[in-house]
């Protein structure tokens, strides 16, 4: 009881107790997440990084030499280079197309349209469905003889396209399917962005004499730029890791004639099919740095876009 009345002196028990608390309290809250992160992300990452330098690594732990040979092998492997090219093309098409489409849809959903709830639900449906299950549905849509897509094309006098079995069209099929599956998440984020724009700016712009097109491009879009930047980064990262989408469409193969290798498929192939663990690790590290560089670039651009 006496202690309470004493002044809290530097180094006193009370102060030390407060300091200890100030340290341990946040640590206690963060610990569960940090343990998981270190155990399942940081530690394996470091291991993969080290592994990528070991040649002929066996699960027993034995390896023949330590060096950059895995990287040299991977970077000269035509399958990997093909995967790099395909992944690049994939990102280059899927992300912008999905972003622009999502912008239009989110904009429409943001207005008071009839059957708004119905539209909202249907656009968000892909989000709650299994990518593989829906992939199988898309496999049917793409079917050469009976597919709905070829039927629709035939209505416009376009002859049937062999989406899934002609290597020339494999990437297009993958892109179409992926754009569709990327829409809901992008729409949700963009819709939130749209709803964050104070409607007063629209009123102000109308009083200033602007018509809807002008308002969209001069007011809405710039105010939405940070959100668009965010969705672009997230989508680019996830698109760089394209893999799951391949399975239902091409029966677990990378395209009809092994033409549609992606970086992650290559990794998977090296790891599970060929047991070349070092090469798998090296390709993983290369992908990691590509994604990292893309993200840093994006962040810089985004900071420029964050305009107020």
């Amino acid at each position, binding site marked *: 009881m006496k202690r309470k009345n004493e002044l809290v002196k530097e180094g006193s028990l009370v102060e030390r107790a407060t300091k200890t608390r100030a340290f341990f309290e946040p640590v206690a809250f963060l610990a569960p997440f940090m343990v998981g992160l270190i155990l399942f992300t940081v530690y394996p990452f470091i291991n993969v990084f080290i592994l990528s330098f070991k040649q002929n690594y066996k699960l027993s732990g034995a390896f023949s030499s330590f060096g950059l040979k895995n990287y040299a092998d991977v970077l000269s492997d035509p399958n990997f280079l093909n995967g790099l090219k395909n992944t690049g093309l994939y990102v280059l098409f899927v992300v912008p197309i999905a972003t622009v489409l999502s912008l239009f849809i989110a904009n429409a959903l943001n207005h008071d349209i009839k059957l708004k709830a119905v539209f909202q639900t249907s656009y968000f449906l892909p989000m709650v469905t299994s990518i593989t299950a829906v992939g199988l549905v898309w496999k049917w849509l793409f079917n050469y003889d009976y597919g709905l897509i070829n039927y629709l094309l035939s209505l416009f006098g376009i002859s049937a396209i062999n989406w899934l079995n002609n290597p020339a069209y494999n990437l297009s099929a993958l892109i179409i399917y992926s754009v569709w599956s990327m829409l809901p998440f992008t729409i949700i984020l963009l819709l939130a962005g749209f709803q964050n724009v*104070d409607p*007063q700016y629209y009123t*102000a712009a109308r009083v200033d*004499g602007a018509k809807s097109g002008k308002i969209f491009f*001069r007011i809405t879009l710039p*105010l939405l*730029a940070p959100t668009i930047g965010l969705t672009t980064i997230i989508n680019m990262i996830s698109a760089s890791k394209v893999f799951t989408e391949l399975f239902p469409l091409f029966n677990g193969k990378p395209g009809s004639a092994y033409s549609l290798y992606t970086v992650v498929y290559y990794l998977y192939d090296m790891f599970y099919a060929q047991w070349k663990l070092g090469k798998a690790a090296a390709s993983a590290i290369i992908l990691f740095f590509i994604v990292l560089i893309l993200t840093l670039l994006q962040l810089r651009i985004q900071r420029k876009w964050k305009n*107020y």
Partner: protein
Amino acid sequence: MQIKLEHLEKKFGDATAVQDLSLTIENGKLLTLLGPSGCGKSTVLNMISGILAATSGRIWFDDKDVTGVPPEKRNVGLVFQNYALYPHMTALENICFPLEIKRVPKKQRIERARELAELIRISDLLDRKPLQMSGGQQQRVAIARALAKEPQVFLMDEPLSNLDAKLRVEMREEILRIQRASKVTTVFVTHDQEEALSISDSVVVLKNGVFQQQATARTLYDEPENYFVADFLGTPPINKLFGVMKNGCFCFKDSDLCCELPLRHPVEDGKETVLAVRPESILLSVAQQKLPCVVDERYSVGKDELAILNIAGQTMRGFVNPEYPISTGDKLECGFKQRGIFLFDKKTGERLS
């Protein structure tokens, strides 16, 4: 540009926000819509700007009926209560935006914006974004933006309510100066009577969407047409003394004390009335009518001294001469000046004297 509102009405569902409003705003004048919050003044403004469609009635800009014209075609300048400056544009870009819409060449746009910035004294702020500016600065930019397209009508929706007291007085003088310089017909909305009285050529008082009175600030204060206007204007508020009519005289409630007033028309005996007296119209020293009263309290508010007086069981506040030697508990006699004293029908609010 003369603005004329004819039987203007606005309903939101079942609620009537503005009811049968007719008024004229003369070319180049500054008119204020004054009333407590929720009285429909902003609704009227938004109907003039075209943001809200009128339920019925007409709006005329000179001899052109603009009732159905969308806001982007009305050529009005509007200053919003929270300014609504585009956050991603600099002050200069904000001011230029309406000109950009009008397809004014870029060079002229910037020239015009700089001229306006000069007038509004923000030349040194043109490169800043709204978030880097204070409320007062944002407000000036908003005014410049509204004036940039040379609007036929200049509308301001409580533009001073987000500013601190000192800045408010400064900006209100500034607005007056800008309006005088630009000679644009202006409608100003406020709930602040001091603001309204100090800058307007003419003030319209609204209550629950119903027109009360249109007059100059002076007239509104000196000759309120009804009880609401008398009560709404003035700080400290006008004193309300309740009573009934007897032989054409106002007699205090539950009291024999009566006083004679010049009535506008004969009023029947027994009618319940309210005698409204401005605090500065109470005379303590030289009074014509000798009404006994007791000093309940005396206190000072800045430069003035106020006394709370008890007269026939009712209280009223009056300004007193600081040198006048009265203190709590004193019994004295008071009277009223000719000016600033009104008699109203308690039920209808109609002015009787």
